[in-house]
Each structure stands twice: as structure tokens, then as C-alpha cells.
């Protein structure tokens, strides 16, 4: 009704109909009875908090996962996919956040990767045809891209166009875009929207996953909101505003899940002043009192992890200072940060946390061998005892301190890493997504652990993408957007809606 285009399209056919889709991973029900319909030639936004089931749903569509129950119809024909190739063959293309392009190949080579036109001689590739057909496809959609350019030399926005052309070369009629704007600049975003609109005009359906709600209002025709693996709302965008979408996304009651907090924050322990780093954070300032748990919210790519990395000496600071217990710290490496009493539980347990092949005890003591009186020579018996004690204290379930780390469950691995920082006697502890990928029981234990640490007077910075847990255990919430701190709110005086609004909506 607001735009004429909208009403013209109301009688278009259905491109995709997913009905009654359920999927569980072990004990976790990722999706239950989800039905999802996308009309031909429309942009359909799929929104929801982290873990709401968006990725699982589109991965089922793309043939990555098989649903436990439910059916998929594409242009009113039923299909079951065992492999991604089968979905591709009937016109479903996924464009992942990290794009999946071969960086050292040219745009044209990427477009025809695995699908190269044959040359005259056997086993050869017709390069000329590849370049011509890429140019032709780009031209028919008015995309400005050089088919001979090497992908690693292109801007992210151009890479995205290459990925789109790659989808078009396979006759995609449904294109899924997962957080396409998270690493784009403003101008590139505008250009991407133009590209998406052109695709829509040619009758292609786009499933658009994004956290940035203002984008959705401006771009999408329909929106479907997922929460806890269920569809909570599906409607034309014109009938909704951002506030309503946020309400649908977070509309969940805080249960008794979070342990009661009874800590009176003391004096200021940590002061971060005007912190900037080369990796996109600008002028971030905040302080944390002793015994205070301060949350940090923000979208993927807002710069939360980068704040932690700059404080911990992983990334170089461009400017700014960190003061702990009234002393300004000079930190150039994680080793410096640890000796100053700072801990960082990194967001990626496997990549930056654990030495997976090694014993649990080794992983626990590695950051504090000096403190434990093993400056040069390690006493294995003593080390074992220390590890066993801290393991018992955190009730880590293992076969013993000598068991290899990869024999532990995700939750116990996480507790092991927390144990590492307990032994390091850290005063300022940063937890980056500590509950990601661990089960509900382990989450609860992590929360009580954080509480206990706060009771001991430590200053805690708790980075999380899950608003309920931020509201469940923090005293204050900092909100990041595009590398800047845009909110510093007392948890008791704010709402999930307000935090989401600050994190997701551009104020001009």
C-alpha cells in the first residue's frame, strides 16, 4: 500500500515453501515445526537473535543439514536434499558471510569454479568463454565488475558481487544472503542494496539474514522472525516498525535461570580511556568497579572482541590508556597483560584458547607457571595436584588432569579455561562469549562462577550476543556499534528493546 511495487506483486507465485521443519542436534532442539514461505521476486528478511535458528533453517534449505521432519517445495515442486549440490542444481544458492571465494583466482574463474566451460583440447578450460560469459552476466544486471580481476585485490563489496554472479551463473532463483553487510562500508552497503533490488526486479527471490533492522525496513518486502527455533511472526514489512520487530525477537521472559546477585560494587578498579586500535575501534572509554559485572552488547562486527583484544595486547593500540587499581599499564602483548593481572577468555575456544592435543593440566597451568613457583622447572606432581584441585573447585568432569583436552565436552573445556585464569590470579577478567556452544547446564555453572568471581572483588567485562544473559547477570551494559561505544546503561534501568535499538539502529 505504501509503494505501488508492493501491491503489484501480491499475486506473484511462491518461490519457496518450507513446511513443518524440525531439526535437533543431540538434545538441542534447533528448529521446531517451522514453516517459511518466500514469494517470487521478493526480498524476505529472516531475523532473530543468535541461536534462534536462522542459520539452521537456511542450511537445511541449502542441503547442508537434513531436517528431522518437514518438507521443502521449490516453485511448488517437492524436493529432498542430501547434499548442497542438489540444492544448487534446482536454483538455491547460499552466499555466506565469508563468501567462500578462492582469493587467488580471478572473478571469472570464481564464477565458474567447478563448472568451467571445456576448452578445445581435453582437460583444458576455455578462459575466453569464461570471461565473456561473466561479463555478459554482469552486464545483464548492470553490475560493474572486471571479470579478469583477482579476487584478493577486490573490495569486499565487489567480492560480494562476484559471489552473486557465481550464483546467477548457476541459474539461481533463490539466493540466501547471510549478514551480507557486516563487513561493508556505508557506500558499499548502498551499492549492495541496489544490486539486490535489481535481482528482485528480474524475479529472483532473496532470503536476507541481517541483524541490522533499519536495513530490513528499507530493503525487504516480507519479514519472518524466529525465536528459540520457532516462527513467532511473519508479515509484510510495511505493516511493521523496528520496535515491533525487536519485541518479537526478544519477547521472552527472564526465568529463574540466572543466579541471584548480591554484590555491592566497590571502588573503580578498571578505567579504559579513549581506547582506539588499528582494527576499527574508536575512542572507547568505560570503567568497571570491583565486584561489578559489566556486560558488552553489540552486533557481530561491532568491535566488541576488538576492544578485548586491544586491552589484552593482542592488537596494537593506536591510542588510549588502561588503568588498573590506579596504575596505568603498559601492555604490548598478552604476556604483559597477564602479568598485570588481566585475563581474556577468548571467543574462539578451539582457535585461541586450548592446546587441544595436550593434557588438561598443561592447559590449565600454562598462563601461570611462574606464579605457581615453577618459573623454570616444572614439578609434575605439584602441577597435577594444582590442576586436580582447581578442577574439583569448578567441578570439571574429566578422567583426571592428565586426560587430553579433546576428551572433554565443550562446557568442561570452557570451565578448564576459566580455571586457567583463576590460577593466574587475574584482577580484571574479560569473558568473550563464554557461553557460546555449551549446553544449558554448563551455562548456568558459568553464570554462578562469574558471580563468585565478582564476590571476590574482581572486575568483570562480559561480552555477549545474547541479551537475556546480559540482563540476567550484569550490573551495567555497554553497547557497541561500528567500533564506538554508543550506550552505557544500568541494567536495572533499561530494557532489551532499548539495547537492541542502540546496537542495531543507525542514528543519523
Amino acid at each position, binding site marked *: 500500500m505504501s509503494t505501488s511495487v508492493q501491491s503489484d506483486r501480491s499475486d506473484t507465485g511462491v518461490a519457496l515453501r518450507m513446511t513443518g521443519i524440525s531439526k535437533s542436534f543431540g538434545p538441542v532442539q534447533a528448529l521446531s515445526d517451522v514453516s517459511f514461505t518466500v514469494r517470487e521476486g521478493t526480498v524476505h528478511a529472516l531475523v532473530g537473535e543468535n541461536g534462534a535458528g536462522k542459520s539452521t533453517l537456511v542450511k537445511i534449505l541449502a542441503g547442508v543439514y537434513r531436517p528431522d521432519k518437514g518438507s521443502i517445495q521449490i516453485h511448488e515442486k517437492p524436493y529432498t536434499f542430501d547434499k548442497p549440490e542438489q540444492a544448487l542444481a534446482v536454483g538455491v544458492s547460499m552466499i555466506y558471510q565469508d563468501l567462500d571465494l578462492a582469493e587467488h583466482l580471478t572473478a571469472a574463474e570464481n564464477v565458474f569454479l567447478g563448472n568451467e566451460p571445456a576448452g578445445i583440447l581435453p582437460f583444458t578450460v576455455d578462459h575466453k568463454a569464461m570471461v565473456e560469459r561473466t561479463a555478459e552476466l554482469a552486464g545483464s544486471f548492470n553490475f560493474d565488475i572486471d571479470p579478469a580481476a583477482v579476487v584478493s585485490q577486490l573490495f569486499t563489496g565487489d567480492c560480494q558481487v562476484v559471489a552473486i554472479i557465481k550464483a546467477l551463473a548457476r541459474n539461481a532463483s533463490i539466493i540466501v544472503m547471510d549478514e551480507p553487510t557486516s563487513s561493508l562500508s556505508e557506500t558499499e552497503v548502498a551499492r549492495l542494496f541496489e544490486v539486490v533490488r535489481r535481482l528482485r526486479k528480474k524475479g529472483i527471490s532473496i532470503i536476507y539474514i541481517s541483524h541490522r533492522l533499519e536495513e530490513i525496513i528499507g530493503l525487504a518486502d516480507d519479514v519472518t522472525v524466529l525465536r528459540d527455533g520457532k516462527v513467532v511472526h511473519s508479515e509484510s514489512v510495511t505493516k511493521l516498525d523496528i520496535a515491533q520487530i525487536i519485541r518479537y525477537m526478544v519477547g521472552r521472559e527472564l526465568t529463574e535461570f540466572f543466579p541471584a546477585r548480591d554484590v555491592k560494587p566497590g571502588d573503580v578498579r578498571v578505567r579504559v580511556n579513549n581506547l582506539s586500535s588499528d582494527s576499527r575501534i574508536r575512542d572507547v572509554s568505560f570503567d568497571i568497579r570491583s565486584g561489578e559485572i559489566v556486560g558488552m552488547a553489540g552486533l557481530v562486527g561491532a568491535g566488541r572482541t576488538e576492544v578485548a583484544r586491544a586491552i589484552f595486547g593482542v592488537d596494537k593500540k593506536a591510542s588510549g590508556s588502561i588503568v588498573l587499581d590506579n596504575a596505568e599499564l603498559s601492555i604490548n602483548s*598478552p604476556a604483559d597483560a597477564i602479568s598485570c593481572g588481566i585475563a581474556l577468555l577468548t571467543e574462539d575456544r578451539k*582457535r*585461541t584458547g586450548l*592446546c587441544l592435543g595436550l593434557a588438561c593440566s598443561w592447559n590449565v597451568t600454562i598462563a601461570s607457571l611462574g606464579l605457581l613457583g615453577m*618459573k*623454570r622447572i616444572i614439578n609434575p606432581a605439584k602441577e597435577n595436584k594444582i590442576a586436580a584441585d582447581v578442577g574439583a573447585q569448578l567441578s570439571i568432569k574429566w578422567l583426571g588432569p592428565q586426560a587430553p583436552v579433546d576428551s572433554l565436552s565443550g562446557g568442561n573445556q570452557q570451565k578448564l579455561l576459566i580455571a586457567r585464569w583463576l590460577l593466574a590470579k587475574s584482577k580484571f577478567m574479560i569473558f568473550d562469549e563464554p557461553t557460546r556452544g555449551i549446553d544449558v547446564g554448563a551455562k548456568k555453572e558459568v553464570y554462578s562462577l562469574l558471580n563468585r568471581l565478582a564476590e571476590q572483588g574482581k572486575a568483570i567485562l562480559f561480552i555477549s550476543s545474547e541479551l537475556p544473559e546480559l540482563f540476567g547477570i550484569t550490573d551495567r551494559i555497554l553497547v557497541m556499534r561500528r567500533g564506538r561505544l554508543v550506550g552505557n546503561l544500568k541494567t536495572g534501568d533499561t530494557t532489551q528493546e532499548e539495547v537492541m535499538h542502540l546496537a542495531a539502529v543507525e542514528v543519523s
Partner: protein
Amino acid sequence: MSKFMRQLLPFGSLTLIICILAALKPDTFLTMENFMNVLRRSSVNGIIAIGMTSIIISAGIDLSVGSMLALCGMAGAYTMIAVGGSDPQGGAVVVGTVLGVVVGIICGFVNGVLITKLKLQPFIVTLGTMSAFRGISYVMNSGQPYNVPSYKYLGEGVMLGIPVSVVIFVIIIAMAGFLLRYSRLGRYTYAIGSNREAAFHAGVNVDRNLIYIYTFTGLLVGIAAMIATSRTVSAQPTAGIALELDIIAAVVIGGASLAGGRGTITGTIIGALLISVLRNGCTLLGISTHIQLIVIGMIIILAVAVDQLAQTKTRELQA
């Protein structure tokens, strides 16, 4: 348990080969003299393999050890002759020996600094220094060896009935084994090899530790070089060509993983002995050196294949 089994495998094969040889050639193989001979021959390779073990555990590699061996020997022998004349003795020999070892330390240090400060792959850096060290060895005396006729102690000397080189070998085994197992440096070596990023985030000074590891290997190569020089009473610029492959083979047969984070001194020693005993046995049985190459090649592949199989099996059991 699985760790123990993995150690048992190369040890078992070594025992098996010894038994077979003992049965086939009891009068020549099963003698104290032959046994000492095998140990003496293993000492040079074994000492270098100990250094290589620490590098491979840290997920690195050092291809330059063979060239480094030649360079250290040449530098040591040159110094002996420069100080003590054409048949150096006493003090000149000591000075030369020390200098040869120091050159090894410097070479290892250079490798470590290039790898960490230029952020280059160890394979590339040591491929480069392999060529450069060899070149310097040739340049030193226009491709000719230095002869040091009286430099016999390290190669042929005997201490309490045991060859000096074997005594040095055993002392180094004990020290390196202790360091790798009980020192913080050893612990960090495993951590860096297992997950360099994680080690860095846990406060390990990765660069400094890698430089230590490569320098330590240089030191061991220096010692091995002086033993090798003494054994032939001359320093050859062609010494140790393709030696790195034998060394890596010993380490890998001993159960270390080229992906890093895994390996032991015990395993490497068994690997080195396995190769030596095979060579010795083949010689005693009159099998040509050409055939020996084929046998050793197959053993390398077999050892790693069996080890990998054992690993997948234990992982399946855990899951």
C-alpha cells in the same frame, strides 16, 4: 595408555629387528664391539635428531642441519689449523672445538631470528640457509677439506670403556629429555606446536621461545659436527649432504608429528637406533646400500601409517 602404546610400537619394531639379526648373524651382530659400533655411528645423527625433535614438536622444521654440520666442522678445523699449525694439538684443538660449537649456536640463532622476525615459514628459511651454509663451507677452503690428523679424541676416544661420542650422546639425551619434559621452555615448545595462537593468548612469548629452540638445535649440530670431524680426522665441506632427511626420518619414526605438538626424545632415539641397526644389519648380511635405501624408505612410510592408524583407533575408542 594410548601414549604408552604409541611408544611401544617403534620400540617393538627395533627389538624385532635386533632379534632377527641376532638369529641370522649371531657371531657378528651380537657382539659388544658391533653394539658399540652401532651406538658410535648413531651418535652424530642421534644428537642432531634430538634438536630436530624439539623443532618438529614446535611445528617447525630445520632443513639446514646437514649444511650446518659441514660449516661447523670446517670452521672448527680451520681454527685449529690457524692456531696450532698443520697438525694441531692440545690447546688449539680445544679452541677449535669450542669455536665449531659456537658457529653452530650462531647458525641456529640466525635461523630462529629469520623465522620469527621476518615471519617466514621455517621450511623456506632453512631451505635458504641450507644452501647458504653449504656455500660458505665450500668457499672456506675452495671446496677442499681441512685435515686435522691428531684430532681423534671425540671420534675414537674411550672413557671407562665406552666411546667418548657415546658418552656425550647419552649425556645430551638425558639433558634434552629432562628439558623437554620438565622445563618451562619444553612445555612451551609443546604448546606452541599444538596451537601457536592459543599459546600466544596464554602469555607465551612465542618468538623468543622459537629462537631458543632453533639456537639449541644449532648447539647440538655444532657438537655433532665436531664428533664427525674427529671421526674422519678431517672436516669435509661435503659432510652431511641429505643428512636432514635421515634426521627427520628418525624423528618421525619415533612418533613425532610434523603438524606439531607431539613427539618425545625416547621415540626419536629409538627411531635413530632403528635406522642405524637396519643399516648395520644390512651390511652384515651383505645387502647393498642401494637396497638399504629402499628398506628405510618403506620403514618410514610404514611407521607413520601404523602410527596414524593407532591414533584413529584410540580416537574412535574415546568417542
